[in-house]
């Protein structure tokens, strides 16, 4: 990476309009902005803060497990930490992460629109998110929670920790999720520029659309579960309480009716990022655009019919459990369709290995590994053995954290030049990708072995025979943490001192690269020309450049 950026020819037909970053630099203009790009950045910073916080909780948990028995904290502190780790990571990072930060930024541009359909609601959704997140954090200071992120009744309703505040906070965050979903669905239907038919949309839009459908339909069900839990905790409401004629199993049903599809809220946007990155860096159209687009809806749909696989040991009938097991395995079929498409696209393409693609490689490995273990835990007889052990912990960290986190980092590097108008240092990016992947693998692979050997999840203490694997896992978490902190350093540097990015540094055909980096306030200077589709790699690039990416391939070598 020698970053020889070509001299930028002056645009002739337009007086250069200030970018969205430059139009107004006041704090007020940021806090009250209705520009989807700025709102995306507000979300990005908020979410980065929460992933840092959730990461600190995780590090403390891992350090505690360096030794059996009490180490740096009491058992109660440990319970609070893993609960808050889960709540923070699930609702304050993974659910909002890619859609609110990158979705907000690129979706309208990918559709050739000036903004999302409801810009004010978009801003509102950010503040709702912030209020909800603050309430969750306040619960930390009011005694925390010791229920785990799943808030299972009847324990949650009797726990004397701040369950009320935590559930209230998550409930509020849910509103933000729904509003965001409504906004993206409407934007996709309504604001596509002339010529962008459904089958001409970049694949990232498809996945955000699918995600939004899940958000809109699943989140209200979680809302009911949370409200009833909060009422139960505060006023002995009793809907989930046997003694009052209620039924605790009903909590599990409605909680997982949301929380299983929620996994796809986390992973689908990452899949969208992968689709974009794979095509761009193979300089090749996806092997089958339709297969990738439709399988998104396969996952979104089947995802609603699999919640029972969390309840195999909760007394489901054999038939029900079998049905849920098979439906769960169907998700793997749709995921495999995507995975084969990506790998085949790579194989047919001329691959340039850049940081975003390295993160995608990490995604592919972690996702396939996590997915295969997912099929394993969907098998009822095996799940009885693995239920509530570290095996399950390792499985869902691989698939949803591994998937979302690498997708998030790929997106961050991929769109960094577009968002900031600067290039990040390629070599440091590669180092970070390797660190994240290695750290992740070393942290969580031993947890499969621990779980298979019988180590239960959420236990403060463990038997001596589990010691060495716990140590390996903890050491891995340090590498992972380093891999996550590192980008903060070099991206901050690049933000101010990185070389200027051309409009289309990767030679991508996708629509968001046909506008200046960073984009002007209304995204495009002129009407977006969509005669060349987002994946038409067989057509010459010169047809749509905005006039600033002058190298042969439109790519910085």
């Amino acid at each position, binding site marked *: 990476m020698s970053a020889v950026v070509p001299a930028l020819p002056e645009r002739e037909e337009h007086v250069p309009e200030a970018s969205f970053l430059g139009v107004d630099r006041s704090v007020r203009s940021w806090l009250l902005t209705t520009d989807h790009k700025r709102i995306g950045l507000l979300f990005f910073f908020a979410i980065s803060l929460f992933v840092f916080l959730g990461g600190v909780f995780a590090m403390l948990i891992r350090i505690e497990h360096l030794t059996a028995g009490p180490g740096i904290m009491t058992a109660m502190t440990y319970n609070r930490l893993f609960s808050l780790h889960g709540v923070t990571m699930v609702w304050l990072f993974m659910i909002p992460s890619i859609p609110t930060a990158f979705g907000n930024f690129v979706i309208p541009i990918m559709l050739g629109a000036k903004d999302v359909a409801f810009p004010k609601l978009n801003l509102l959704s950010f503040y709702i998110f912030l209020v909800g997140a603050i309430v969750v954090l306040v619960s930390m200071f009011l005694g925390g929670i010791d229920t785990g992120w799943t808030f299972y009744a009847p324990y949650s309703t009797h726990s004397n920790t701040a369950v009320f505040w935590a559930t209230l906070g998550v409930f509020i965050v849910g509103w933000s999720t729904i509003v965001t979903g409504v906004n993206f669905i409407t934007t996709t239907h309504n604001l596509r520029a002339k010529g962008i038919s459904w089958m001409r949309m970049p694949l990232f839009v498809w996945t955000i659309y699918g995600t939004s459908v899940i958000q809109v339909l699943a989140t209200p069900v979680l*809302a009911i579960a949370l409200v009833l839990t909060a009422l139960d905790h505060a006023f002995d409401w009793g*809907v989930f309480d046997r003694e009052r004629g209620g039924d605790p199993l009903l909590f599990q049903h409605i909680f997982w009716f949301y929380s299983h599809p929620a996994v796809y809220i986390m992973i689908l946007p990452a899949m969208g990022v992968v689709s974009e990155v794979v095509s761009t860096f193979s300089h090749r159209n996806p092997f089958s655009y339709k297969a990738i687009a439709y399988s998104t809806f396969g996952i979104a749909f089947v995802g609603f019919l699999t919640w029972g696989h969390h309840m195999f040991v909760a007394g489901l009938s054999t038939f029900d459990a079998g049905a849920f097991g098979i439906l769960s395995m169907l998700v793997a079929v749709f995921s495999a369709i995507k995975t084969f498409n990506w790998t085949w696209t790579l194989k047919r393409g001329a691959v340039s290995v850049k940081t975003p693609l390295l993160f995608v490689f990490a995604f592919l490995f972690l996702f396939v590994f996590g997915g295969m273990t997912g099929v394993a835990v969907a098998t009822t007889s095996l799940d009885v053995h693995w239920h509530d052990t570290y095996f399950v912990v390792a499985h869902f960290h691989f698939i949803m954290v591994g998937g979302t986190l690498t997708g998030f980092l790929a997106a961050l590097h991929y769109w960094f030049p577009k968002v900031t108008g600067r290039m990040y240092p390629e070599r440091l990016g590669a180092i970070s990708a390797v660190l994240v992947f290695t750290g992740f693998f070393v942290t969580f692979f031993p947890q499969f072995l621990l779980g298979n050997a019988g180590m239960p999840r959420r236990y403060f203490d463990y038997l001596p025979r589990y010691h060495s694997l716990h140590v390996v896992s903890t050491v891995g978490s340090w590498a992972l943490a380093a891999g996550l902190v590192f980008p903060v350093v070099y991206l901050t540097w690049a933000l101010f001192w990185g070389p200027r990015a051309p409009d289309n540094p990767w030679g991508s055909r996708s629509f968001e690269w046909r506008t200046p980096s960073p984009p002007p306030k209304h995204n495009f200077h002129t009407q977006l020309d969509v005669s060349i589709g987002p994946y038409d790699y067989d057509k010459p690039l010169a047809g749509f450049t905005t006039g600033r990416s002058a190298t042969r391939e439109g790519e910085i070598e």
Partner: protein
Amino acid sequence: MSDTARHDHFESLEQQGDAARLGLWVFLASEVLLFGALFVLYAALRVQHESAFRESLEHATKTLGSINTAVLLVSSAFVAMAVHVLRAGRVKVAAALTSVTVILGLAFLAIKITEYVIHGGEGIGPAGTGHFFVEHRDRGFVPFWTLYYTMTGLHALHVFVGTSVLAFMVGGMVFGAIRESTVYRLECGAAYWHLVDLFWIFLWPLFYLA
């Protein structure tokens, strides 16, 4: 109306209206799932406490609840008429018709609160509070009444929000923000109101009839 109602990122007022309508319908889908979860809880708990739920239905406010059904249906008809006349450009008539809906919405809430007071007087509270539950030992009575308060309470909250939205729209029609060209705004308010109405159509049999 002039183009001032159009937001910058839409090409036309029609497109803006379509977006608002679609956005609202997507939100309504979300609302259906919100109540859907509660209907599922009702069904599951009713299966577990069949006789107690049946017995509970023979309560004191059957008539009031049924009157409320009529109130809501009539209110919905008025706002539907309001949309029709507004499409024909008769803003004042539309405002008057919508005002009737608002008044009926308030009447619904008044009757609902009366019902709660009557139940309170009988010693029936949510979460098994009150002397009624001392006299009726079957555990099934508790979830029936807890769900009654939860579900009709959530519905009443929706009625309150819907009434406020429609009252706001009356203001919009009086002051000119809602006219023939921006009828989609009233349509959205009306569609929300119809859904609130529809929820009651399901709550009524579940808590008053059978």
